[in-house]
C-alpha cells in the first residue's frame, strides 16, 4: 500500500504504490466531476509556486476543493519574505506551520527534496526545474489505464526526449509495467543514453527511430511532447523538424482503431487541431485526470486513514 510521506520523484514509487494511487483516483473520479466529498474538510493545502503555472496549480486547487479542503496561495514573490532574501528552507518551515501539506514548484532542481527535509507536513513536488514532476507522470499513467491499457502496452514517446522531464519520468514508470517503448525524436533531441541504459537494464524493450510515420500503425499510445524552438540555433532547422513531427489526420489513416494520442499540454504545432475530433485525441481528458489523481495523492497524504 501507500507508505510515502512525501511525493517527490517517480523513482521512489513501486508498481504497487502507483496502482494504489490509480485505484483511489478511480474511486474519487465521480467527486472530481462534481460530487460531494468531505474527506479533507478542515484541512489546508499551501500552494507554493515560485514559477508560473496554470494547469498544475489550478488542478491542485480544484482537487483540494473537491475534497472539501481549503488552499493557501503564495502571493507574488515581490513584497514577500522571499524577495527580502529568505531561504527556501525558512519559507518552508514557516508555511509548513500554517498548512497540512505543501505543493511546491520551484526553478531549482532538488528544491522539493530540500523542502521535504525542512517541512513538518507532507510535500508534493509540482515540478523542480528540469527535474521531476511526479504528479504529471501519475496522471499520464491514469490516462493510459482509463483510455487504453497498461498491460502489454506499446507506446511511442515523440518529440523532445532529451530535455523533456515528463517523458523521462514516464519512461521509468512504464518500465515497471513492462511496456514496449519506441522513442521518436530528431537526432539532436534523442533520449539521454544513461536513461536508455537504465531502461534496458530493467528489461524494457526500447526502440529508437527518427521517423514518426513508421511507428504510428504499431502502437497503442502516441505520447507527443513539444519541441521547443529555443533548442534550435537555426530557425530553418527548427521548422524542418517541427514539420516532420507534426501529427495530422493523414498520419493516422493506418493507426489502430484504439490508438490514443496524449500530450502534457500546452501544445503548439505538434498536433494539428483537426486531430482533436478524430477520436484518438485524449489530451483534454488527460488534463482533467490530473484532478482525480491529485485528489488521490492529497487524500493519501492528509486523510484520516493515515
Amino acid at each position, binding site marked *: 500500500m501507500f507508505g510515502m510521506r512525501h511525493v517527490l*520523484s517517480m*523513482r521512489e514509487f513501486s508498481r504497487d504504490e502507483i496502482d494504489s494511487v490509480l485505484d483511489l483516483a478511480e474511486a474519487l473520479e465521480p467527486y472530481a466531476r462534481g460530487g460531494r466529498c468531505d474527506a479533507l474538510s478542515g484541512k489546508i493545502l499551501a500552494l507554493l509556486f515560485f514559477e508560473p503555472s496554470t494547469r498544475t496549480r489550478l488542478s491542485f486547487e480544484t482537487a483540494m476543493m473537491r475534497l472539501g479542503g481549503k488552499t493557501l496561495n503564495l502571493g507574488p514573490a515581490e513584497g514577500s519574505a522571499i524577495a527580502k532574501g529568505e*531561504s*527556501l*528552507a525558512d519559507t518552508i518551515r514557516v508555511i509548513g506551520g500554517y498548512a497540512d501539506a505543501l505543493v511546491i514548484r*520551484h*526553478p*531549482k*532542481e*532538488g*528544491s522539493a*527534496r*530540500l523542502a521535504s*527535509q525542512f517541512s513538518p507536513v507532507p510535500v508534493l513536488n509540482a515540478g*523542480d*526545474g*528540469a*527535474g*521531476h514532476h511526479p504528479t504529471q507522470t501519475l496522471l499520464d499513467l491514469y490516462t493510459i489505464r482509463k483510455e487504453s491499457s497498461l498491460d502489454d502496452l506499446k507506446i511511442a514517446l515523440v518529440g523532445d526526449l532529451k530535455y523533456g522531464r515528463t517523458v523521462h519520468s514516464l519512461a521509468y514508470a512504464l518500465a515497471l509495467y513492462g511496456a514496449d517503448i519506441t522513442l521518436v525524436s530528431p537526432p539532436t533531441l534523442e533520449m539521454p543514453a*544513461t536513461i536508455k541504459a537504465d531502461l534496458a537494464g530493467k528489461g524494457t524493450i526500447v526502440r529508437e527511430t527518427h521517423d514518426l510515420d513508421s511507428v504510428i500503425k504499431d502502437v497503442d499510445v502516441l505520447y507527443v511532447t513539444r519541441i521547443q524552438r529555443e533548442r534550435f540555433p537555426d530557425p530553418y532547422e527548427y521548422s524542418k523538424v517541427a514539420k516532420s513531427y507534426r501529427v495530422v489526420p493523414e498520419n493516422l489513416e493506418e493507426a489502430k482503431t484504439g490508438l490514443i494520442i496524449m500530450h502534457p499540454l500546452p501544445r503548439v504545432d505538434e498536433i494539428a487541431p483537426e486531430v482533436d475530433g478524430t477520436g484518438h485525441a485524449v489530451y483534454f481528458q488527460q488534463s482533467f485526470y490530473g484532478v482525480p489523481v491529485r485528489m488521490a495523492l492529497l487524500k493519501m497524504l492528509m486523510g484520516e486513514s493515515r
Partner: protein
Amino acid sequence: MTETEMKLRVTPIGNGTVIDHIPPGQALNVLKILGIDRTTEATISVLMNVSSRRSGKKDIVKVEDRELKEEEVNKISLIAPGATINIIRDRRVVEKYTVDMPDLIVGVVRCPNPSCISNTSEPIKSQILVKSKNPVVLRCVYCEQAIAEKIADYLI
C-alpha cells in the same frame, strides 16, 4: 626507486596514520578531503609518485600523532578507492584496513549541476549517494544527477 630506498627518504612515523596506495597525483586531494591544511599542527609527510609493486606508482600521506577515524578516512575512497589505512602506535602497525566507501557522502563533493538547489545559499550540505562503488558512480540526493567522471574536480 625501490620500496627500501623510498622508505629511507621519509622515516617511519612513531605514532599516527599512514594512508598508502593512493592513486598517483591524488595525495593533495586526500589532504583536502581530510580537511588537512596549513592550520593543521600535526607533521604531515606527502610522498607522490613513488614506486609500487601493486600499481606501478602511488602516493602516500603520513599524519603524525593523529589517528584518523574510520568514518573520516572513508571519504577519501571517492578518489582513492584502493587506499589502505595503517594506524601506527610506538612504530608498530596496530590496525590496517582498506577504505570502504560509505553509502552517503555529506559535505565532501559539490553537485556538478549548476541548477541544483544544493549549489545555492540554502542552509544544507551537499549529500551524495553512492550508486556504484566500482566504477564509482555517485548521485546527488537533491537533483538526482549522476556524477561518474572527474569526481576530484567537484571536491568542496
